[in-house]
């Protein structure tokens, strides 16, 4: 019940979803439609509890044990409730919930708080990549030199300044991307594709079970 039955379910579902691709019979089509459009999407809705639980447990634990920076976890919860109240506050008559809903527009919270925070956090990488390029990007070997030269050509050729220096540069970059780069990316893609197929087969056959929790 606890181990074998889930594996049987995974095997059955995997097999059915795989073979229906090759069978255009109305029953196969109907099964596919019900599974894809209803069952699997509805089940996916409930998977959010995993994310919410991990978020809650991590921060509650931090606050309870007064770990360093525990106050920041309180801020995280404030963020959650602020957004929830801005989204659902209309259902709460009076009180703080209604106040937040009335004065803090849900879209504004996204546009002026969530979006700038995340965008800025990722923009920090611009500084770190510049620093890393200066410190770590060295032509130590033949391979590293090749990488370095290609990177430099691409960096120059993909900006207007490169085209102003030499008109042919964008074409050279396009050629690098379209032929040698594409060849290597395709080799990687074929390898990854084969890996994905092998992993899927292992899941269906019950060889790969880690997704069921540490087995």
């Amino acid at each position, binding site marked *: 019940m606890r*181990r074998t*039955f*889930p594996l049987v*379910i995974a095997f059955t579902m*995997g097999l059915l979803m*795989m073979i229906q691709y090759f069978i255009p019979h109305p029953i196969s089509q109907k099964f596919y439609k019900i599974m894809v459009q209803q*069952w*699997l999407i509805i*089940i*996916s*809705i*409930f*998977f*959010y*509890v*995993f*994310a919410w639980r991990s978020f809650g447990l991590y921060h509650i634990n931090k606050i309870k044990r007064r770990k360093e920076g525990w106050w920041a976890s309180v801020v*995280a919860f404030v*963020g*959650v*409730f*602020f*957004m*929830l109240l801005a*989204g659902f506050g209309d259902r709460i008559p009076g009180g703080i919930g209604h106040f937040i809903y009335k004065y803090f527009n849900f879209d504004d*919270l*996204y546009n002026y*708080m*969530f979006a*700038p925070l995340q965008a*800025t*956090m*990722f*923009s920090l990488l611009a*500084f*770190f*990549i*510049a620093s890393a390029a200066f410190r770590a990007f060295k032509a130590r070997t033949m*391979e*590293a030199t*090749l*990488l370095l030269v*290609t*990177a430099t050509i*691409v*960096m120059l050729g*993909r900006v207007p300044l490169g085209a102003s220096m030499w008109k042919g540069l964008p074409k050279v970059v396009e050629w690098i991307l*379209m*032929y040698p*780069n594409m*060849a290597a990316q*395709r080799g990687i893609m074929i390898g*990854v*594709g084969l890996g*994905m*197929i092998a992993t*899927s*087969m292992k899941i*269906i056959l019950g060889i790969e079970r880690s997704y069921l*929790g540490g087995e």
Partner: protein
Amino acid sequence: MHISTNPWVWIAAILTLAIYSFLYKDNPFYKFAEHLFMGLSIGYGAVVLWYNSIIPRLWNPLAHGTSPSRFYLLIPIAIGLLSFGIFSKKYSWLIKYPLAFSVGAYAGFSIPVTFEASIFEQISGTILTKQMMATPWLAISNLIMFVGVITTITYFYFSKHHKGLLGKSARTGIVFLMLAFGASFGYTVMARISLLIGRMQFLLHDWLGIIK
């Protein structure tokens, strides 16, 4: 210079600067902004999920629907509800059912399309056709592409020692890989700088109104 009078723009600017304060060193302003972001993200996701998915996909069909087949929805709902088993140590094994159902199905329907998209189409795109050899330059370019694909794949073939012909091929594969990684690195620099430019445009245009 037209400094914004919109309080929301000021909030966004202050939060932006709070994140940038990390460049000097880690500090409470950064921590505040970072954790606020995490919380807002979870809250936003929950609200969107409620209005865009739970209401139209679960509540409306069951509460307002008229079709008798709507009760079949109770089966996936019941399977999905087993996910709540995660909150109990005793019943946490119940989550294996919705997981097995979904992961099994995903694995099943991904196999044929992955074969087509990542294997067949890519092999077919590598086979040299007359059209690909139309001009001498095109022929050279496509021959380089052909050699590149074959040698890159051989580099990732680990079932045999990279010696002899296989070794030579794998070493050629490394050359192609380095070219590709170089191109990717150049592009990565571009991407990271773009993000910074975006934030600077916000600060200088939307907030301070210094640039047009």
